[in-house]
């Protein structure tokens, strides 16, 4: 599914990702943890195609397709979905119109006709239920007036609507109370299948009690410094990041 090899990326001349490699197979859930500022959101943005970042080295493919050469919209059409850490409000763009456009753009890319209005609304209803997202969408602007939790739920709702191959969840758990967290996790678990994959970025182990990952990676200073199974997350929860930081920093100093 997703293959990242030796990825280097920088912004404003400052290197943030410094040789990151990761393989995600269909059906898998990978958690990426790491202290603040380690480059987790940068990785998510680079995968989704944000143009502020410059990829200086490495390659990223999705089912063999080179993503790095593609515009963000084409990556989305190929099946990449980023649930934003900070979903923005866009006043004047209606939720429903936006969603309909997104759904139909992906369909058009696959050579399918626009979805019938009835089917679309049916799916909206069904998927809203899935993430217990009962905010009224009609006649409202994108994310406008939504609470922090509603915005996060809206991201997962969109995910459910668009059915991507690869979903990247960037700290979807932050700002969610425990009930909302459970609901979002249930939604994701329902959507998991042998044909898709999830990269779950989180700062805390908490979310991983609900979305159980196959692999856990620790990102620090732009590199994956440790990989393991869900036990690694528990270990981090217990010991914090400091021991890892120290061992990485020590190794760094040793090589200099």
């Amino acid at each position, binding site marked *: 599914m997703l293959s990242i090899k030796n990825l280097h990326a920088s912004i404003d001349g400052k290197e943030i990702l410094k040789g990151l490699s990761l393989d995600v197979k269909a059906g898998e859930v990978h958690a990426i943890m790491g202290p603040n500022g380690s480059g987790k959101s940068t990785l998510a943005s680079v995968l*989704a*195609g*944000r*143009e*502020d970042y410059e990829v200086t080295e490495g390659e990223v493919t999705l089912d063999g397709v080179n993503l790095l050469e593609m*515009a*963000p*919209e084409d*990556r*989305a*059409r190929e099946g990449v*979905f*980023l649930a*934003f850490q900070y*979903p*923005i409000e*866009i*006043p*004047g*763009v209606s939720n429903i119109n*936006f969603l309909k*456009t*997104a759904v139909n*753009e*992906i369909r058009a*890319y696959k050579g399918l006709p626009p979805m019938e209005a009835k089917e679309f609304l049916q799916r909206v209803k069904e998927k809203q239920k899935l993430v217990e997202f009962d905010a009224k969408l009609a006649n409202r*602007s994108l994310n406008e007036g939504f609470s922090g939790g509603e915005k996060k739920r809206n991201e997962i709702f*969109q995910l459910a609507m*668009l059915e991507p191959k690869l979903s990247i969840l960037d700290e979807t758990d932050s700002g969610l109370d425990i009930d909302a967290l459970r609901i979002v996790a249930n939604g994701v678990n329902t959507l998991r299948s042998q044909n898709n994959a999830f990269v779950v970025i989180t700062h805390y182990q908490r979310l991983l009690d609900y979305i159980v990952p196959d692999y856990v990676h620790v990102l620090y200073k732009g590199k994956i410094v440790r990989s393991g199974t869900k036990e690694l997350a528990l270990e981090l929860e217990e010991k914090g990041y400091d021991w890892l930081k120290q061992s990485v920093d020590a190794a760094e100093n040793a090589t200099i």
Partner: protein
Amino acid sequence: MITQVSSSLYQQIVANFEEGLMVGAQVPSLDTVRKDAFERFKRTGFPTTKMEDWKYTNLQPLLNESYMLEDTLPERNVGLEDAVISGLDAYRIVLVNGEYRADLSDVIAEHGVQVLPFLEAVNNPIFQKHFAQYADKTDNPLVALNTASNKGGVFISLSDGTVLSKAIQLVHIMASSETLFSQSRNLMVLSKNTKAQLVESFITSDGSAKSLSNNVSEIVVEENAQLYHYYIQVAGEQSNFLNHIEVHQKKHSLYNNYNCSFPGASFVRNNINVRLDDSAVESHLYGIVLGARKQFVDNHTIVDHSMPHCESYEWYKNIMQDEATAVFNGKIFVQLDAQKTNAFQQNNNMLIGDKAVVYSKPQLEIFADDVKCSHGCTIGQFDDDALFYLRARAIGEQQARTLLVHAFAYDVTEKFDNSAVRDYVDRLIERGLNIA
């Protein structure tokens, strides 16, 4: 007898007027008004950039051209397709180069409505009561010129209690084979308890020569009357406009102006002055300018509160592409007697073109103390975060930009009372965007 001389428009006009050659001068009952107005124009001449209200608006290049002062073919055929607003139920009145054309205009058979070409209206008592009573009180020399020498335009009046079942669409079409200066003078009087929609469309006939139009409209909205006034500029590049609208409102009246300019006309200056001359008056001024190429669009508005308990609301949005320039100058006066005034003004600008320019100037002059007034101005570009968000959801870049421009304009377009016009304007926005 109209001669074309290769001198400035000012000299041409003065010479013609003084020799009695401008047809407009030959209406006996208007003689005094005309002569007086002409003297006013002659004293000032055309506005120059030395005048505060014309600081960014240089007429000189236009005035250096030589113009025909009358169309050589007044009965010419014109195509009106560009004025069609699908879904709009309207009576159509057509002015070709400012002149009323009965052959192209609908007859409005509804009770209580009168439509007359300017030259036929001069003996009408309502016309006589109102003509040149409002716009000429301003210091705009272009109004004086129009009063002195126009002959085109229409007079529309609604008698007490008349509520029109359809809108009136007033189509201004520019069509000439040689460089033409034209003027129309319109007067619309809505008597008590009337309600109407006026949709003005400015278009250019295919292949028409360059033109400069100096149009003046006076609008009287009497007690408890309501006018929804759409003003849609979709003329071609060769057309240039100097438009002045002077609105005079009475008690409990409502005047809504929706002023929209789209890529095309090279030079547009609109003066829109609304005088709230009575208590409990409400006025709304909405504007959208979508500029492109080297277009210049200048909207100067005055909202003049002189009596208590009135409300005005103004919102202008400029979306400027390429090397286009917009001017927004919004004056709000709240006179000493205008206590309990509510006045709101907002101007938002989106600069898309690297060489696009906006001059924005709110001007509040408040002499009363118990009032609520606010104004604001913003200038921005495309919001990169919003663009990325949309693109990350599979929406192509061009469509994402279009969505964001629509979103930007939405505060204004959602206020359009007439949904056919609103949809039309939405389509014009989409068509006018050249983002690729």
